[in-house]
């Protein structure tokens, strides 16, 4: 039993963090959110060169042959930096294509970072999508980071379909509440894709991985809110003292650190449960989502409070985490839905 990072995982963490800190300081994150798909394409290729998208793809299929534990490390760093773009969809598509029996020519391009793939959760209430054979029809709202150039991984009730870019899906970008995560309505009118897997079991497998990796992303964001607050409370002075020396502020920071450790522990345990296909993996994933959602929303709020008047401005980065916490919560089964799921198992 060991829930700490291995030295390999620490090396992945250091390399991803170095890359993202260099490529994506917050000023660049804000630019990218408005720069459009072309700017994202450069970032994607650089990430592809570093192997971000093929961590859990078998070596024989052009990946690194690691597992979801290493993907967790990647997503935590992505969440820390609020990196824009469909990271989750792209990683899941690489996994799904690599798991498919037939070779698909897009796999190599996805792993290389030449293609971005948006995740369409057709099991959500905001989707009317139906899949028949390899044909996708209907529409989904609130699809993250989709644009005219993205491909789609459509996860429906009983089927997983990969829809290549330019296959005829209509993408209608919508103004987004979360400035670092775009949303779009996506319509499919009898669009043909590649059926990668069918059956409720295969769908549950993908959604489980998606949910727990989104939790890892949240863990990174939660940790970043602690760091931002601590950095600020050490330097911001009032009454001739750093505000972090006042217990009201110090104790709020301590509570933030507790939530970060709780979220990280639950997520790590859930990730390893999923890797091992443990009997209680669904329960563990719900636990992680519940603690990450609650922790992220509260930490992001506390971080605004710690920054005082500055925290309420658009200029201060604190609000970006508030919005990311909310967009994380509502996707892939919200905290409330997870609580009801747990209660249903009583």
């Amino acid at each position, binding site marked *: 039993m060991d829930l700490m990072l291995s030295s390999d995982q620490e090396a992945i963490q250091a390399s991803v963090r170095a890359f993202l800190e260099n490529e994506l300081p917050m000023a660049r994150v804000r630019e990218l959110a408005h720069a459009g798909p072309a700017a994202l394409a450069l970032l994607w290729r650089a990430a592809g060169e570093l192997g971000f998208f093929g961590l859990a793809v078998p070596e024989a299929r052009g990946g690194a042959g690691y597992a979801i534990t290493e993907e967790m490390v990647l997503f935590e760093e992505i969440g820390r930096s609020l990196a824009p773009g469909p990271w989750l969809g792209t990683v899941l598509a690489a996994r799904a294509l690599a798991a498919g029996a037939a070779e698909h020519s897009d796999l190599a391009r996805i792993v290389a970072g030449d293609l971005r793939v948006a995740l369409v959760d057709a099991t959500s209430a905001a989707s009317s999508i139906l899949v028949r054979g390899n044909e996708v029809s209907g529409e989904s709202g609130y699809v993250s980071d989709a644009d005219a150039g993205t491909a789609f991984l459509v996860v429906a009730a009983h089927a997983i379909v990969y829809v290549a870019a330019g296959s005829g899906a209509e993408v209608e970008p919508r103004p987004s509440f979360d400035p670092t995560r775009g949303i779009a309505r996506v319509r499919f009118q009898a669009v043909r894709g590649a059926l990668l897997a069918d059956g409720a079991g295969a769908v549950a497998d993908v959604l489980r991985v998606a949910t727990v990796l989104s939790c890892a992303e949240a863990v990174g964001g939660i940790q970043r809110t602690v760091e931002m607050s601590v950095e600020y409370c050490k330097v911001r002075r009032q009454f001739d003292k750093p505000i972090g020396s006042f217990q009201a502020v110090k104790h709020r920071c*301590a509570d933030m650190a507790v939530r970060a*450790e709780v979220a990280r522990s639950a997520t790590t345990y859930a990730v390893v*449960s999923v890797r*091992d296909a443990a009997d209680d993996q669904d329960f563990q994933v719900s636990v992680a989502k519940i603690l990450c959602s609650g922790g992220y929303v509260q930490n992001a709020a506390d971080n605004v409070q710690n920054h005082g008047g500055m925290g309420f401005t658009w200029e201060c980065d604190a609000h970006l985490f508030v919005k990311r916490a909310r967009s994380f919560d509502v996707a892939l089964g919200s905290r409330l839905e997870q*609580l009801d799921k747990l209660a249903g198992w009583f």
Partner: protein
Amino acid sequence: MDITFTPDEERFRARAREWIEANKPSDPPAENDIEARREFDLAWQRRMHAAGWAGISWPKEYGGRGASLMEQLIWYEEFASAGAHDPSTLFVGLNHGGPTLIACGSEAQKSFHLPKILRGEVVWCQGFSEPGAGSDLGSLAARAVVDGDDLVVTGQKIWTSFAQIAEFQELLVRTDPDAPKHKGITWVICPMDAKGMEIRPIRTMAGHQDFCEVFYDEVRIPRANIVGQINDGWRVAMSTLGFERGTAFLSEQVRLTRMVGELIELARRTPLGGVAPGGADGAKRAIDDSDVARRLALLRAEVEALRAMTYRSVSRTARTGVPSSEASLIRIFFSELQQRVHGLAMEILGPQILEWDAEEGPASAEEGARRKRIRETWVFRYLLSFASTIAAGSKDIQRNIIGERVLGLPR
């Protein structure tokens, strides 16, 4: 990363489970019968010792089990999930006094005291807090002056659990009033039958008398009882507090997970509001209420996260070899979670919590037993749970520790 245990560890688990199941004592005495609790706990300790399970974390050379960190984790998990009686009157000896002697005691102190603690022959208590030195323990004022071969102690201690049934006390006294406050303290073994001591039990808000005030009027303690050097007691004491915040809390955490399971059962059995209108069958149950169900679900998720947090902490300690300040993160989360669990129990039970001696007088013996169970399992423990954010470093001090030592915020 790994959430499974090795085949050796699983075999250890099977042996522990089998032994605990076959040997755990039943029908512990009432919380209020402190003498009976002492004898019950000592007998249980002797049984564990005879079978080689005593002092699970103590090194083998001192008669302990010498279990690895993972085995300790497994032992505490099995102990708590079997619902085995926690010998709480022996906590200080097994988890503070003994480990402190192992770390800092002389050979003579070790060979005299350690076997007695381990074999279940003696009870230890802790003389740290004073009326004027609680969270600010370093300002303690009980004085000791050297007189020949003795220390002569005058002063007062408070919140000393089990002083009235203990043979020995780990006692902190000020031996150099002129030194900076952490430099003039000495850690000494005080025999509780020494002349000049007076013990007054204090009734807690839960109604029982676990802890005491202890008064010292020129109490003579041999200098040979000093552990470590004179005036070096703060360092010695910090090694004990490290133990207190370390693995010793594991079984409490597992026990809390069990409590949540029992709380879910309680919500299944109890009508919403605690009492069915007119005692009617088929009334809506507490668990059928979506608010109650979601709060139970949250507690269920939180105790699970607590377990993951503990596993992470044990993993970290296994690598570094020392318990870290991060233990305060777990302590805060655990103690407040425990209070939420017991608070929800009060809401589920409804007005039946109000009758204190409810087992007296109901029509059937079965109903009397049910009411007694409610009072002991839920009402009493709800009141006890108030102590968990005060004892062993209040939650406010824990938050200071996190803020200053973990996050590096200024004092």
